């Protein structure tokens, strides 16, 4: 199994280069976090993997076969995004019938079970649902397809904290039941950080980082203590960022902590802080 190989992928829109020669391998059976600032090219990349748009140049292959206009390959991929793809006049359960026809692994029982947990009314048309419930409809559909590759572009858009919590729980349960590749693209980084196995950060159409989460976390740490002591400790070290509150200071430092002087507290760097530092211009 090769997974998804992305080779020299470029996408241009008039004078904008959304993706610029991206090379990336998505390994099978892993949960990926696809991170990037607005307009970085995340959605463009996911939409190309899902055959929704075509690249200006480059190739995407799944287990050696091109993903473009390939029914066999696309039958192993399911993508959700802000894009509404189904007939606005169909009810949720009718759309699921259509999805089931195309994805033999789709479990109507599981979909209904999830709909019950999320309190999704399957007799409504998607256009009658709120933004949050539209997202729920999409994530339930995606999880129930049992596709080998599930692409989730902003899967928590409009979800309240309770539903987000439930989604993370169900996503992990689904993955535990049958491991698959799940790519999550979101701006709410800290919430998904614990789900991820691999992190890909895209900046201005290029892959900036592609590492396992453990290695990403080792890229930096935070130190908290009295302002003067923290400043003294930081001298000569590469600072990723800093925060002050009263006389206390927290510094985010690149590298591994080593020995920490007494009076200072070290902690693992959170993914969001690293992301902000890496993606700031």
């Amino acid at each position, binding site marked *: 199994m090769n997974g998804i190989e992305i080779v020299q992928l470029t996408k241009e829109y008039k004078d904008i280069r959304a993706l610029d020669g991206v090379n990336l391998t998505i390994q099978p059976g892993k949960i990926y976090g696809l991170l990037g600032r607005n307009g970085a090219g995340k959605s463009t990349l996911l939409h190309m993997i899902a055959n929704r748009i075509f690249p200006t140049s480059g190739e995407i292959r799944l287990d050696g076969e091109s993903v473009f206009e390939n029914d066999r390959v696309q039958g192993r991929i399911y993508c959700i995004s802000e*894009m509404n793809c189904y007939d606005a006049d169909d009810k949720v359960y009718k759309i699921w019938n259509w999805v089931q026809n195309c994805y033999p692994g789709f479990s109507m029982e599981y979909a209904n079970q999830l709909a019950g947990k999320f309190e999704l009314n399957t007799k409504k048309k998607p256009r009658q649902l709120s933004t949050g419930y539209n997202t729920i409809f999409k994530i339930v559909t995606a999880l129930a397809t049992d596709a080998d590759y599930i692409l989730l572009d902003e899967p928590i858009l409009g979800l309240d904290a309770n539903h987000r919590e439930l989604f993370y729980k169900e996503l992990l349960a689904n993955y535990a039941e049958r491991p698959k590749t799940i790519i999550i693209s979101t701006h709410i980084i800290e919430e998904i950080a614990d789900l991820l196995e691999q992190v890909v950060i895209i900046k201005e159409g290029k892959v900036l980082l592609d590492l396992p989460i453990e290695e990403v976390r080792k890229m930096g740490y935070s130190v908290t203590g009295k302002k003067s002591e923290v400043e003294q400790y930081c001298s000569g070290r590469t600072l990723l960022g800093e925060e002050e509150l009263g006389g206390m200071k927290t510094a985010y430092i690149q590298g591994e902590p080593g020995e920490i002087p007494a009076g200072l507290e070290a902690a693992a760097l959170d993914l969001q802080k690293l992301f902000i530092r890496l993606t700031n211009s």
Partner: protein
Amino acid sequence: MKFKQSFLYQTKKMLYASLITSGVYVLLALLMLLLSHILDPEIQFNGVIIGYLVFMLVSGIVAFVNNPRAHVANGISRRTCYLAFLAMIPTVSLAVILEMAVLRLLFMDVSTELDWVLEFLMQSYQTGYLGALFLLFLLLLTINLAGFLIAGAFYRLNVIGRILLAVVGGFVLMVLLPLFVVVCPDAAAALGRFLAEFVASYGSLSVMLLLISCLCGACGYLLVRRSPIRSVKW
């Protein structure tokens, strides 16, 4: 290839829409029947075939936008979707012909003008009822594919292109063509005679409709094969 799934999905949707259209016509025919009793016995319900032709045109237009989106979302390529669409059109056209025939059976006694297009075809081409139905079948096929092509052209063009296409198309039809007839009547008459050759006989009209269908079908595929999927507002 998920041809079967796509064919069944598209056919089911179109048949459902055509049955609703027929249902509306039945209601309209009944309403006219009622009005003819109350107001004027001359009131008649007609234009059913024109209505079905408009239905097929609109269906073709909608198909370009809706079909690839709902298929690509389910891992079905544009090519498979389009092939299934090509297989669906004759199937649905046949169903529409049958629905027309049933409407005729139901209302021919009370509404003599119900299918004047059919009468026109029968008289003009000296053909029987079945022969006229076959011509209508080809007409439905052609108009659906033409609708698909028109929608495809507008979908793929940018805003300026769309405006230009609409303006130029409108200008040619509304200004240039009438002007040509007025300014060059001989040339216009010659052109008219030349075009009339294509519809002069039953056979030539059938062949012409088939050729136009093939042309629209081929151009439609060129437009749909690399068309980007766009979101729809729910």
